[in-house]
């Protein structure tokens, strides 16, 4: 029986007591291993980490006293010490008895320093697991020996592989509860091996252990004489790490900041993503492609003659070349690719599902772009590895997509480099990080993209018609009066001899958009297409009127962004829901209330009112005729020269 009630001895290494300077010199040169623990709820992750901290003597007396008190009050282990309480930090999760976030722990042994990311097991927090995995060198995947390989084990293993962690430990925990049965252990390992091979995890180290009782944690357990491998901690201390691999790749540095303390100094600050750099090395600035050579590697400790991957430095160049935050400095002879359309894997991290066609912010290295994601090629079922057809990606879904950025991005395939291949997507409206992505390859190199040069310009088209191109974008609830007013406006403009075209919601849905329904994703695509059509019409010099509910601010702003400044006039036809429902011209509200129409704006789908429309029409305060006159008058002011 392992003695789990003993008091820790706190007998620090004799070396600390006898020769602290020798100890520090030794400690200073330890390497660092960052690892994650992942597994299902109740697999014992927190207990295992608590045990590692306890056994590596990282727990102080006052913490231990608090732990003993907490164990009696909150613990799930009777009067015994509940190690999970050491690491379950937040009050909310203490009450629920589960870990709800990523927590980082620190400990050191004589061999190494460790940073552990404790990542949660239940499905809705997969985003935290991806977060923890993204900076880890090694993953410990926990399995409850009584339960074997579960759905979550597969999910976490798939994510570990996806993120590119090469060292995997399969920790078969709670062996004490299966009587330290070798056959049980072997069966779990065999089961896991077949799944691991299918997802490309070629090798892993399996260890039978008990976090609760301490078997095979720091010392070989007497209960598992059939196990000939290393205890977990010994394995973590000795596993070979590829710490210098990135230094053999070509030089890459994402410029974070340009240092200009005075006119004579212009330094480019950043962390070396890969390779090495020396004064005199030829470098290329991307995406511009301009070349120069390194003059100095400047640090506060003096200039360096060599800097390597992982170091934060400041470089100066021989020539005055344009270079700013977001640019990449690279070895001149082997620069990374530049492109604006990619295939990528996305892990969706947000409760708000992916809306194909909507623009998100993309951050990769120090580069920012606006990115549109097309409808996913497929979603991956991580249990079966099947490819499933889907129009969106929901929280925790993993899918392969095509991604288009509004400007060229300097990148490397994620498989060859994380720094220039990993990215995040950010919701433009609430600023949440909604997805983590990994670039596979460019679908279109930006240097091959050419717009057809047109001799008759859009300005010439408009001038020929004695007008300026405009989009009058009518938005508002169903039944607000958008089409009625838009019709009147068009008639008045036509009478003035103007060249116009009215795009009506119902009409477009009969043709161009007849493949689309009324889900959020389809509504986004509906508006995106209408926006593109409206843009082509403005190229032809037309005044375009559109009448669509267009309930989402993001899509209206997307269209605004497609057009030149001042060309897009948002006309908010403001009618209260009660009034629109009272009118119910098409009988749609009645149907929606009866549950016969799903996703009806105002009833079971939101309408996001414009915050600053160019024109607001209060239909309670004026007739459609008066509204039309107001709109034409507004247009006459800036869009109808000579009218």
């Amino acid at each position, binding site marked *: 029986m392992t003695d789990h009630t003993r008091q820790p001895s706190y007998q620090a290494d004799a070396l600390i007591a006898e020769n602290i300077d020798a100890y520090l010199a030794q400690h*200073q040169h330890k390497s660092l291993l960052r690892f994650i623990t992942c597994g299902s709820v109740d697999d014992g992750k927190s207990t295992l980490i608590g045990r590692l901290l306890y056994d590596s003597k990282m727990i102080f007396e006052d913490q231990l006293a608090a732990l003993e008190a907490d164990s009696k009050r909150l613990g799930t282990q009777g009067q015994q010490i509940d190690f999970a309480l050491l690491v379950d930090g937040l*009050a909310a999760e*203490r009450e629920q008895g589960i870990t709800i976030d990523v927590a980082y722990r620190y400990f050191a042994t004589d061999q190494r320093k460790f940073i552990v990311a404790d990542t949660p097991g239940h499905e809705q927090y997969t985003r935290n697991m991806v977060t923890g995995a993204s900076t880890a060198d090694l993953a410990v995947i926990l399995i409850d020996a009584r339960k074997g390989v579960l759905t979550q084990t597969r999910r976490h293993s798939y994510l570990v592989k996806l993120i590119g962690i090469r060292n995997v430990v399969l920790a078969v925990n709670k062996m004490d509860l299966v009587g330290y049965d070798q056959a049980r252990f072997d069966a779990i390992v065999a089961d896991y091996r077949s799944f691991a091979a299918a997802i490309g995890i070629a090798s892993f180290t399996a260890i039978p252990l008990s976090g609760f009782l301490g078997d095979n944690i720091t010392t070989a357990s007497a209960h598992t004489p059939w196990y000939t491998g290393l205890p977990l901690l010994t394995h973590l201390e000795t596993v070979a790490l590829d710490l210098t691999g990135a230094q053999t790749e070509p030089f890459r540095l994402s410029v974070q900041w340009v240092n200009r303390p005075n006119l004579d100094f212009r330094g480019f600050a*950043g962390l070396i993503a890969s390779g090495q750099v020396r004064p005199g090395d030829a470098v290329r600035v991307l995406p511009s492609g301009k070349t120069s050579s390194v003059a100095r590697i400047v640090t506060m400790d003096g200039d360096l003659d060599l800097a390597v991957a992982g170091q934060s430095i400041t470089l100066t160049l021989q020539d005055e070349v344009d270079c700013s935050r977001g640019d990449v400095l690279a070895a001149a002879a082997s620069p990374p690719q530049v492109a604006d359309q990619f295939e990528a894997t996305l892990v969706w991290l947000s409760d708000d599902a992916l809306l194909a066609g909507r623009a998100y912010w993309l951050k990769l290295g120090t580069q920012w772009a606006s990115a549109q994601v097309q409808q996913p090629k497929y979603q991956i079922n991580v249990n079966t590895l099947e490819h499933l057809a889907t129009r969106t990606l929901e929280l925790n879904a993993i899918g392969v997509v095509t991604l288009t950025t509004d400007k060229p991005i300097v990148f490397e395939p994620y498989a060859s480099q994380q720094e220039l291949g990993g990215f995040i997507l950010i919701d433009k409206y609430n600023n949440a990080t909604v997805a983590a992505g990994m670039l596979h390859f460019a679908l279109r190199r930006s240097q091959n993209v050419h717009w057809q040069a047109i001799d008759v310009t859009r300005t010439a088209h408009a001038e020929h018609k004695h007008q300026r191109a405009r989009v009058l974008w009518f938005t508002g609830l169903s039944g607000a009066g958008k089409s009625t007013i838009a019709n009147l406006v068009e008639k008045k403009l036509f009478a003035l001899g103007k060249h116009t075209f009215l795009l009506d919601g119902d009409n477009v849905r009969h043709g161009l958009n007849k493949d689309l329904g009324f889900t959020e994703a389809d509504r986004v695509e509906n508006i995106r297409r209408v926006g593109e059509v409206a843009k082509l019409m403005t190229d032809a010099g037309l005044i375009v009127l559109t009448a669509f509910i267009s309930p989402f601010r993001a899509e209206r702003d997307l269209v605004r962004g497609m057009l030149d400044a001042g060309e897009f006039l948002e006309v908010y036809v403001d009618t209260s829901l009660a009034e629109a429902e009272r009118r119910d011209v098409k009988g749609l509200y009645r149907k929606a209330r009866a549950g016969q129409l799903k996703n009806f704006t105002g009833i079971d789908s939101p309408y996001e009112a414009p915050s600053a429309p160019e024109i607001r029409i209060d239909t309670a305060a004026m007739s459609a005729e008066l509204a039309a006159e107001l709109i034409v008058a507004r247009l006459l002011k800036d869009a109808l020269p000579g009218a």
Partner: protein
Amino acid sequence: MRVLTHLQRLEAESIHILREVVGEAERPVMLYSVGKDSAVMLQLARKAFFPAPPPFPLLHVDTTWKFRAMYELRDHMARVAGMELLVYQNPDAIARGINPFDHGSLHTDLWKTEGLKQALDKYGFDAAFGGARRDEEKSRAKERIFSFRSANHRWDPKQQRPELWRLYNAKKAQGESIRVFPISNWTELDIWQYIQLENIPIVPLYFAAPRPTVRRDGLLLMVDDERFRLAPGETPVARSIRFRTLGCYPLTGAIESHAQTLSEVIQEMLLTTTSERQGRAIDHDQSASMEKKKQEGYF
């Protein structure tokens, strides 16, 4: 090939974080508390932006009850770094004469928690560097490096953004701000070892010396100036003491020690049997007290 040590990796990571904030925030500031963690954070900032001085001011949210030695070092370090030093004292706390003897936890709440919010609002800072480390306390272990605060400075542990690779999302709405913790991944030993390797000046109170002290409620308190109220029959006794953490002098417990050099301090720390926050009175109030304070806006 060159293998970076763990301290070199930590230094590079912290410098990267400092530069990201300067690259993306509109008006960053560094909260400077004059303690050892602040000392390391300031050194990292000087390295990150060398040869320029760090392009943001230092902000000291003062309680007027810090040790005298802390005020001296504070002013000296700001000069050395070539940075503007802003000192903020909550006028409400001044007016009400809030002090640690009469007001207990209200002292921390008004001077520090409220004072910090007022200072950030007054200057319109949208990003504030802090020297918190994840190994200090359980609820901090889950803090992100970029930690978002609502317009009224509240921290919601369930609404934190995932941080992947070295990608930090610093986008925020008007009025929201970020607390950024560049030394999140450093441990107490890392801090001490870096101070030693880099020869960073720290407050002399970290080293043992004979100082006037009284023992009260299990804490060993230093009588730093004439404002210290002695209980009837209490007489300061000279003891060889030093501090593991520094806060307001009547609230910070000292330890008896003879460690006079950095090596001795580190040795003592490694051989000690209590955690470093043990000397702070505020953490003992209740088990999850630090988390509660954080949600309310305490750094």
